[in-house]
């Protein structure tokens, strides 16, 4: 079922709401700025609206439909209880600037969730307001900058491994740092010696993902952290892969100074086709004083206070300031807390174990037919990394990915991390059954064999999707970014 564009089926005089007719005479105090020209919007009635979006939705693939092994994205099941809880009027229908006495339960949610995050990471403090992972990275890096500046130490460089998510260097650059690469060992981990050699008084800190984007645990993390600290720097840990170790390892025990946590990954809040996320940041004692405003403080009488600019001096004098208008992604907090309470400490440990078990199972079931560059580097964590070196006839990772679509799967992450040629990063997550994974392996093996055999038909895959391959080059060369009448 093809669906036309809204602007092709809507009309300016149709509406799906029943509001009083406009009485132009009522627009009396707009300072002479009444809008006279048409806005150019179109409307649909409710039946048409529901149908338009229902039909559009069916051109999408989501976890609810099948296995979604996007590496580093942690596409796990989104429990429906979480959705229900987030919609309770006591959470959904309260205003961010409501008098604090009227939102004590909301502040308590933030406090409880923060407490979970601190305990799970073994860190003493948390900033809840960052709006997503990259915002959390920024929060962490700003705290590092603030800490250095507080002692008059204007360091200029942040070290980032080549395999890092693009957000790491982008964040550091946004905070006006110069980014330098850290080299990797052949086994896919940070080169400890090279790192030590680069440390010095100009290095503000490092940003390391652990487990890293090759799917490996950074064995030397503690030594890296010690070396960085000795050189006067701070350790930022990208928590995107916390899913692999939640409940099993506490980053605080490894010397982390700041780490963001993607609630939409590890703690199951939905990805929603691109957001919203939520990226709380846990801090070490050293960085805690610089954390942003506002934050929630539990009082001795059992009440909760939202500390804002007013109390800046008395409460957290060194805070680097406010990152966003209000106090974070409440709608994600309620979902994540619901998820944590459901799993409990025991369940979260099992989450990590099952995620890692699933990934290793895929790795070992595939390594004979697909290049697995770090298969000998020890067990993988929650994701398995492959490359396209063995493909023939010019077939590439992209072709295998599109071939998976025809088998009823969402493709894995492709061409990331950059350190592996034609990287394929497969993350099964803990919410897939063995049966689902076995089926995937069968399909994946067959595609890998076709790619090794140089089956050219893969170059035109997918054949059975709502669209065949889309021309991204043309889209970028002459961008059409909104609808205009032909």
């Amino acid at each position, binding site marked *: 079922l093809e669906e036309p564009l809204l602007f092709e089926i809507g009309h300016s005089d149709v509406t799906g709401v029943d509001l009083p007719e406009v009485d132009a005479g009522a627009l009396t105090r707009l300072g002479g700025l009444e809008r006279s020209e048409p806005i150019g919007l179109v409307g649909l009635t409710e039946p048409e609206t529901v149908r338009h979006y229902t039909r559009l939705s069916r051109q999408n693939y989501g976890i609810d439909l099948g296995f979604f092994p996007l590496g580093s994205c942690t596409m796990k099941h989104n429990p429906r209880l979480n959705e229900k809880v987030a919609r309770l009027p006591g959470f959904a229908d309260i205003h961010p600037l409501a008098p604090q006495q009227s939102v004590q339960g909301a502040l308590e949610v933030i406090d409880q969730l923060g407490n979970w995050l601190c305990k799970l990471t073994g860190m003493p403090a948390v900033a809840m307001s960052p709006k997503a992972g990259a915002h959390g990275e920024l929060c962490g890096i700003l705290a590092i900058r603030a800490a250095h500046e507080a002692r008059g130490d204007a360091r200029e460089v942040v070290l980032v491994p080549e395999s890092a998510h693009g957000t790491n260097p982008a964040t550091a650059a946004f905070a006006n740092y110069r980014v330098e690469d850290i080299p990797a060992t052949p086994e896919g981990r940070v080169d400890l010696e090279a790192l030590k050699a680069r440390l010095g008084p100009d290095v503000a800190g490092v940003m390391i993902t652990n487990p890293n984007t090759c799917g490996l645990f950074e064995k030397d993390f503690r030594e890296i952290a010690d070396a960085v600290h000795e050189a006067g720097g701070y350790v930022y840990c990208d928590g995107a892969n916390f899913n692999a170790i939640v409940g099993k390892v506490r980053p605080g025990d490894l010397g982390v100074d700041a780490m963001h946590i993607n609630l939409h990954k590890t703690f199951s809040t939905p990805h929603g*086709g691109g957001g919203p996320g939520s990226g709380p940041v846990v801090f070490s004692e050293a960085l805690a004083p610089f954390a942003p405003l506002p934050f929630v403080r539990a009082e001795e009488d059992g009440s909760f206070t939202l500390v804002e600019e007013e109390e800046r001096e008395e409460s957290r004098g060194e805070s680097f300031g406010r990152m966003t*208008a209000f106090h974070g992604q409440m709608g994600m907090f309620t979902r994540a807390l619901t998820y944590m309470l459901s799993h409990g400490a025991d*369940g979260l440990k099992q989450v990590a174990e099952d995620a890692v078990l699933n990934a290793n199972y895929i790795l070992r079931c595939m390594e004979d037919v697909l290049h697995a560059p770090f298969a000998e580097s020890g067990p993988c964590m929650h994701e398995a990394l492959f490359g396209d070196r063995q493909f023939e006839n010019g077939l590439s990772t992209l072709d295998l990915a599109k071939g998976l679509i025809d088998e009823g799967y969402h493709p894995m992450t492709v061409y990331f991390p950059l350190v592996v040629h034609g990287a394929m990063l497969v993350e099964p997550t803990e919410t897939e059954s063995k049966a689902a994974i076995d089926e995937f392996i069968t399909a994946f093996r067959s595609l890998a064999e076709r790619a090794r055999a140089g089956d050219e038909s893969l170059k035109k895959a997918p054949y059975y999707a709502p669209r065949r391959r889309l021309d991204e080059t043309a889209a970028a060369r002459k961008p059409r970014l909104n609808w205009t009448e032909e």
Partner: protein
Amino acid sequence: MRYLPLTDTDRSEMLARIGADSIDDLFVDVPEIARLDGPIRDLPMHASEMAVERHMKALAAKNLAAEGRPFFLGAGAYRHHIPASVDHIIQRGEFLTAYTPYQPEIAQGTLQMLFEFQTQVARLYGCAVANASLYDGSTACWEAVAMATRVTKKKRAVLSGALHPHYSEVVRTMAKFTGDIIADARPAIQAEPDIAGLTSRIDEDTACVVVQYPDILGRVSDLSAIADAAHEKGALLVVVNTEPVALGAIRAPGDMGADIVVGEGQSIGVGLNFGGPYLGLFAVRDPKHVRQMPGRLCGETTDAEGKRGFVLTLSTREQHIRREKATSNICTNSGLCALAFSVHMTLLGEKGLRELAAENHRLACKAADRLAQVPGVTVLNNAFFNEFTLMLDGRPARDVVRALADRGVLGGVSLGRLYPGVEALQQALLVAVTETTTDADIETLATELEALVKEAVQ
């Protein structure tokens, strides 16, 4: 463990296939110092859905939900009626549980929706191009300042005193680190914004002027003079809007010369949610600025069979391609909120949005007239959309707000909370009125305010 499909039998079989004796064999790379010997202590164990639901409902019950009580809070977040079909649609698993549409062949639902969303936002703002959303209005405001410095290669931003103080604070916080220079101010308590004062602060080093429309005091005024003044000095005009419904009644910022228009989209489809998730809107008037924009963009193209389709495009601006040279570090944004906005806007359409705006304004005028009758209360604004500023005699607005809450009335936002310590603003109360406000609500607020102000004056 209702979310974990592996059985113990599965686990054993899989370990055997892997060649590991136990699950801990897979965690051998964790240094011994960091290995835990069991579930983390001081946290509860797993619980049934019923038990968790009870816990969360008990927390929710400690909050005073807006519905059914007099509610006049605004200042950047507004309570509007959201049609039930909006929530139905955003809960479709295919939308809710999809990832960012990097594989367009199986993400046309999200992509077409974003293309329609971009069109809706661009038209609402009077701009050429809108992006596929940012986190919220305040971060969008900072992204606009950052973009202006990239475009103009100048580092000074002039902020209007009537810009939402949280927005200014976000910009100041970020600028501390980037080295940009921020010139800001406090709002002057007067019926009309001080446009001459603002334009006088623009100089040759200015990258942009940032003004809010309607502004933090609810005032609306023509922006053309500011646009002209900015353009004359080679600066861009950034306009911030926190109430998109207003644009159903008043002129679009792009039509008055704004170069970048950003705003909070929460009013349409998203709901209050105690501050998040919200929806950052971002648009530029001149298409030549597109390649300096932050965030995702969805564009039209064709597939191998020539069918129309949509893809994320111009991604060479973005961090996952350009890394430290990206226009922003943004990755996740507000996809599902953009969907909610777009669905609600589709239900409204041109006609509905205009009617909704008219109804908001009508009720706000009614409320202003009624509240102006309360002894000791003055309405500051000459012009406003659905929010205006009251000056209260004799008593800090912050206390009044708290006293009203004790009586179950959510009476507005005090400027004292937004500007702690600024003496001149302590008597000011921001009152927002929407289509959800009833005549009885207005009457209750008037009556309660009268009692509280009288009490204070005595």
